[in-house]
């Protein structure tokens, strides 16, 4: 029986309770390998491909296309030829009998926490109880701590993983000071002090990448490692139409067109994601915060904080991960980095590698942690 391996509904983010099977990309009888995209799943927030957790031949599909089941429910079964159909039947029957449907539906929402810091209240989501320097996930412009759905749980298996809301974002204090990267870096530092973290593996996306690097430059020795995902700060160029459209567009169709610039495959942008951006922008203080960042970090339509000349001053290992199809910050910024900086460029990926190619990004981050 141990040769039989289940494929279950994954948990993408703490708010996910159930998912819908949109399309199987592999069928009964197909041999799949671990990490291969085998089916598309839709949650209330997002649509994405699920990578097979196992290698082997698909022997049974339990949930057909269109079916909606809780996290952890059996979707399909992999097993070698040598396992008989009867054994597969027994395995599926046993799984279904032992699966607690009610508990699975209810066991869903972990609550973010808050830290009081000198720059105001910072909201964060903590997962994992492992030992060693924790992993700190820092989102980009307009994002929040919920944006690491495909990463945080996996990373938290190895280290405590904290995803934070930068000032001006999510549930954190809306004052962003002068709206510069330096201010955000000081805020991140204040957060680490408040929760008692001295050293951490910093993972920053876009604006959050610049913030992570700025923190290490201003407080050397904070970072065990730095993983920069499509980071700001490595060149002058930025797609200011994205920033301005994000701030000004409200109608779903128009805001969607702006958000589609983030990804290579525009079908990744769901109506819920678009509406969530509108909801964020309506929170008291959000509009002022975004405008302050626009006028601080990106004034004159250029990146005002640059650190490519100072990369050599960082003693912690640094890697840069970029999507070839990035339409917000050009992948060319990754080209002239000094030796010793690890570089991973992903084809057919836009500005959201941690979402669009989560498995590879998680592996890269973990290579610095393990």
């Amino acid at each position, binding site marked *: 029986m141990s040769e039989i391996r289940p494929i279950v509904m994954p948990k993408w983010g703490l*708010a996910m309770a159930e998912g819908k099977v949109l399309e199987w990309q592999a069928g009964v009888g197909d041999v799949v390998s671990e990490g291969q995209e085998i089916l598309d799943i839709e949650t209330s927030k997002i649509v994405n491909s699920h990578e097979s957790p196992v290698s082997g031949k698909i022997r049974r599909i339990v949930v057909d296309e269109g079916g909606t089941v809780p996290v952890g429910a059996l979707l399909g079964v992999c097993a070698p030829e040598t396992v008989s159909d009867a054994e597969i039947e027994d395995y599926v029957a046993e799984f279904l009998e032992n699966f607690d449907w009610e508990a699975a539906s209810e066991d869903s929402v972990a609550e973010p926490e808050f830290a009081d810091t000198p720059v105001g209240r910072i909201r964060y989501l903590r997962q994992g109880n492992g030992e060693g320097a924790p992993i700190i996930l820092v989102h980009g412009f307009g994002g929040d701590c919920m944006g690491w759905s495909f990463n945080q749980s996996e990373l938290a298996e190895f280290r405590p993983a904290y995803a934070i809301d930068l000032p001006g974002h999510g*549930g954190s204090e809306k004052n962003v000071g002068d709206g510069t990267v330096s201010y955000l870096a000081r805020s991140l530092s204040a957060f680490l002090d408040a929760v008692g973290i001295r050293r951490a593996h910093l993972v920053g996306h876009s604006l959050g990448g610049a913030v992570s690097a700025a923190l290490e430059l201003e407080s050397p020795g904070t970072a065990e490692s730095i993983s920069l995902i499509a980071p700001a700060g490595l060149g002058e160029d930025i797609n200011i139409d994205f920033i301005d459209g994000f701030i000004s567009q*409200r*109608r*779903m*169709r128009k805001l*969607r067109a702006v958000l589609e610039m983030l990804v290579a495959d525009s079908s990744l942008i769901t109506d819920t994601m678009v509406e969530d951006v509108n*909801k964020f922008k*309506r*929170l*008291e203080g959000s509009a002022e915060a975004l405008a302050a960042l626009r006028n601080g970090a990106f004034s004159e339509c250029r990146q005002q904080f640059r650190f490519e000349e100072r990369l050599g001053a960082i003693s912690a290992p640094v890697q840069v991960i970029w999507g070839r199809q990035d339409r917000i910050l050009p992948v060319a910024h990754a080209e002239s980095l000094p030796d010793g900086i690890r570089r991973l460029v992903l084809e057919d990926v836009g500005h959201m590698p941690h979402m669009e190619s989560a498995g590879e990004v998680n592996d890269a981050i973990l290579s610095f942690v393990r």
Partner: protein
Amino acid sequence: MPTKSFRDALNEGLRQEMERDDRVIIMGEDIAGGMGAPGEDDAWGGPLGVTKGLMPQFGRERVLDTPISESAFIGCAAGAAVTGLRPVAELMFVDFMGVCFDQIFNQAAKFRYMFGGKATTPLVIRTMYGAGFRAASQHSQCLYPLFTHIPGLKVVLPSNPYEAKGLLIQAIRDDDPVMFFEHKVLYDDEADVPDEIYTIPFGEANVTREGDDATVIAFGRMVNLANEAADKLGAAGITVTVVDPRTTSPLDKETILETASETGRVVVVDEAHPRCNLATDISALICENCFDDMKAPIKQITGPHAPVPFSPSLEDLYIPKVEAIEAAVRELVGKGH
């Protein structure tokens, strides 16, 4: 994001504004549980339960039970507003508004104009409207078109709990008199509502669905029916844009005209009686401004020109249905080029 009912979303909006600004007071019949009457204080939190818990937190000075005299307390609220408070008055049923028309139409709505802009009237009147509650003809009307007609009043029709909180906070912060319409069958509806304070601007329509084949413009409770119809039609390959104007005054004409022109086929859904309602108003607006973009005549889905019946089966017939919206869209999609 936490899930809250329409009722609790309104309660939270009131509470957060009362915490933020001590000029905000609330008044209405039994909103604290019956001042001067025997029995438990805060027993009811209003006939709708929306103000539950506010009297214990803010005291009798700011949470005022009023006599059953709508003309008295609506007049009182209008007067308090011009003297610098920010009252939120709860007038149980919009059907009772008749006895305070002078206070609303002639006084509150006109102060800013008559005093050359030197007076402001930051007054909110919350009220319950609509059919579906077996409450008969004197407690079931959709009288928002009457108030939309009056310059100087703002008129708000929230369609779900998220909208209710953001629009109520905006209403309280607005310096003009605002009529805030709560559909009585929506109070127990639930949705994700942020704990944080947020506002939704007036005069900015919400496009809840985006499609190519037809545009459905719906008001208040009807937005949910329009969304349901759009989702059913979408499964059949007909894609529909749904527009919730949110406020009938000010009205987001730009979004209405833009979405009407995009599809060229329009259905307007308004629970009010058919004459001089929002459906006729929106139809005229579209005909006047983008007639050349229309591929088919505009369809209006409304209640009939008759009082709301007390008989449950007749009342059910009275209220516009999802199926009627679907059928109207299908009829239009068969026309034009």
